[in-house]
């Protein structure tokens, strides 16, 4: 269970004051599976509390950080010249905490244009050097603050437009940071320029906290800062939410459609309330393009629910939703059923309902689901948005197509019902797979899958994109992704496996480090098509045996017998249920793939 105290809207003072007790509560929770990540904080100002508060938010997301913290204001030296401690720490992620306080030379009013340009170039070259060195040395994810607006304006309103203005200068540097972010996949901006504005720039840049403690972010603002930063980190490590479960009455429109009639609910542009709900519907609908799945969980007769959506002035249409559960069952049951039908975890939903009783029920009954305290309709957008459930760290082509893919999946389920023989059904799908070594086009999706897949995942090895790229380039590795198309549509990249060669008493064996598949293509034979490719490649490389591993987690029981099904022999079983399997490549191998055409 996640802690409500660490969700927006939160009480920053409470978090600061109780941070030790909160950490205790978080670490005492039972049944939480954490992923461990090494995070280096390279600071241009004090970072002590930033680290401690960030840790709380990350633990709440199921990420257990180990930190390296640079000495005070050593961000440049650590990054560019390195040091042994940082090198041996070998971070998964580096966060560079610089602020406008770290800008050495702002333009003077007496500077000419050329001088101002060269000041910007100097500042920029320092950062380019930092990012380049870190990338070269650690090949890891980098998060960089942009610059916050200064708390004073020497030139008044002209400060923003005149090249001598500080405000103009930081905006210019920020634009150049964004250019870099756009062209580097593992590089993300922590937008303190925005968060400080929301908080209040003058309070954020409190000179008292700067001169006394060298905190460039005022201490009371640190929870807001760390929360925002934690969104990027949890998104990089696959902890984003995937779907909305939405109530309808007084959530998507004003009024109760069953009582008031569809003609009398508030939606559209006729009055203030209707316009407010229209804006909210537009906000929800826009998530579809980010690959977020929209579903309904509403206590209503279905006929009435659909009549509400059928109004011509309703922004959301029936077709926008993957599943609409409008009935009188409890909502926790409906959400669990929806999750099972789409084949994603119920914990990847965000449930939005104006009714606190429904919220409390769903929160108590559906483990891990997010239930924002949305308040009044005026605050719905702010409260959902500020929680960063769907933080975007790079839009993949997959995201844009996701709703369509899940829809096609549900059509497949319908089609399968009309076949008596399952193999006939599989052949009717006209499946075509592309199974190839990891390629730059799919690196982001591959990393995403290693972080998101829980059920069909043999070793649950989590990888950053940088790691994935490293394996792909290593000649002792064999990597394969599988993309699957069928007559209902393109499923995208749905299978990822890799392993590496090892020498065992003069014999070459292949160790399968990771084997996963998206549950959206279960029981299609994709895992057999993938194995064929590995067997072929291993034989070509003169490898004698393939060794497979199964490490049990709370979620991956479905693949307990995976290697047995693939024809492997069990050679070891540990007390914790971990098993080790072997396939002898000198014995004849028969493909179990019946219906997928490969490459």
């Amino acid at each position, binding site marked *: 269970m996640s802690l409500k105290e660490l969700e927006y809207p939160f009480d920053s*003072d409470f978090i*600061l*004051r109780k941070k030790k007790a909160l950490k205790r509560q978080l670490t005492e929770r039972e049944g939480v599976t954490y992923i461990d990540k090494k995070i280096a904080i390279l600071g241009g100002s004090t970072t002590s509390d930033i680290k401690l508060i960030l840790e709380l938010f990350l633990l709440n997301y199921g990420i257990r950080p180990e930190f390296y913290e640079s000495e005070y204001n050593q961000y440049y030296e650590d990054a560019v010249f390195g040091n042994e401690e940082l090198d041996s720490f070998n971070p998964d992620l580096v966060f560079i905490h610089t602020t406008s306080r770290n800008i050495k030379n702002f333009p003077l009013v007496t500077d000419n244009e050329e001088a101002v340009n060269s000041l910007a170039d100097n500042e920029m070259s320092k950062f380019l050097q930092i990012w380049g060195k870190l990338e070269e040395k650690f090949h890891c994810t980098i998060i960089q603050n942009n610059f916050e607006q200064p708390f004073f304006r020497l030139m008044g309103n002209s400060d923003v437009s005149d090249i001598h203005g500080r405000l103009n200068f930081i905006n210019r540097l920020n634009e150049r940071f964004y250019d870099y972010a756009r062209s580097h996949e593992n590089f993300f901006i922590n937008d303190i320029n925005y968060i400080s504005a929301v908080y209040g720039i003058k309070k954020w840049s409190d000179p008292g906290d700067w001169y006394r403690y060298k905190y460039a972010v005022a201490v009371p603002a640190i929870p807001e800062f760390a929360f925002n930063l934690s969104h990027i980190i949890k998104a990089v490590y696959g902890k984003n939410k995937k779907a909305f479960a939405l109530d309808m009455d007084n959530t998507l429109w004003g009024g109760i459609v069953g009582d008031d009639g569809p003609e009398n609910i508030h939606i559209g542009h006729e009055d203030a309330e209707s316009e407010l709900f229209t804006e909210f519907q537009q906000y929800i609908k826009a998530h579809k393009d980010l690959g977020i799945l929209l579903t309904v969980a509403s206590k209503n007769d279905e006929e009435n629910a659909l009549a509400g959506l059928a109004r011509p002035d309703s922004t959301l249409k029936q077709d926008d939703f993957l599943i609409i559960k409008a009935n009188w069952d409890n909502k926790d049951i409906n959400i669990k059923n929806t999750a099972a039908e789409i084949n994603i975890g119920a914990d990847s939903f965000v449930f939005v309902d104006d009714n606190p009783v429904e919220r409390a029920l769903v929160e108590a009954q559906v483990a891990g689901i997010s239930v924002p305290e949305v308040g009044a309709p005026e605050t719905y957008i702010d409260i959902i948005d500020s929680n960063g459930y769907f933080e975007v760290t790079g839009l993949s082509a997959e995201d844009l197509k996701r709703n369509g893919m899940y829809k096609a999946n549900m059509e497949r389920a319908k089609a399968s019902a009309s076949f008596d023989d399952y193999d006939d059904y599989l052949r009717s799908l006209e499946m075509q797979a592309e199974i190839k070594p990891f390629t730059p086009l799919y690196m982001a999706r591959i990393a995403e899958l290693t972080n998101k897949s829980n059920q069909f995942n043999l070793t649950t090895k989590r990888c950053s994109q940088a790691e994935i790229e490293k394996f792909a380039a290593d000649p002792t590795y064999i990597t394969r992704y599988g993309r699957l198309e069928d007559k209902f549509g393109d499923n995208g990249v749905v299978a990822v496996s890799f392993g590496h060669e090892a020498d065992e008493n003069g014999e070459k064996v292949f160790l399968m480090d990771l084997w996963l598949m998206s549950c959206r293509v279960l029981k299609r034979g994709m895992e057999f098509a993938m194995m064929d490719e590995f067997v072929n490649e291993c034989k070509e490389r003169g490898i004698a045996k393939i060794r497979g591993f199964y490490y049990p987690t709370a979620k991956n029981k479905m693949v307990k017998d995976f290697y047995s099904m693939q024809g492997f022999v069990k050679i070891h079983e540990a007390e914790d249920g971990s098993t080790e399997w072997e396939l002898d490549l000198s014995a004849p191998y028969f493909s179990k793939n019946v219906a997928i055409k490969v490459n």
Partner: protein
Amino acid sequence: MTREEVFVKLNEIFQDVFDDEDINVNDATTAADVDGWDSLEHINLLVAIERGFGIRFTMGETTGLKNVGEMVDKIMAHLG
């Protein structure tokens, strides 16, 4: 607020910040008496006091405090 009332509230803040329900501060308490009261935790303590009492210390006030008694004097002065 009386000096006693300030002490009660201040003690709660100490207990929260150092996550120790057994802390009982008095006039003579110093950083050496409280486990974990180092310079970084001192910042958290001051911020928690400022937010808890709704006051703002000036820059000079927070350096050179000898003990909790002096701290309470400063708080009382701000509360007026």
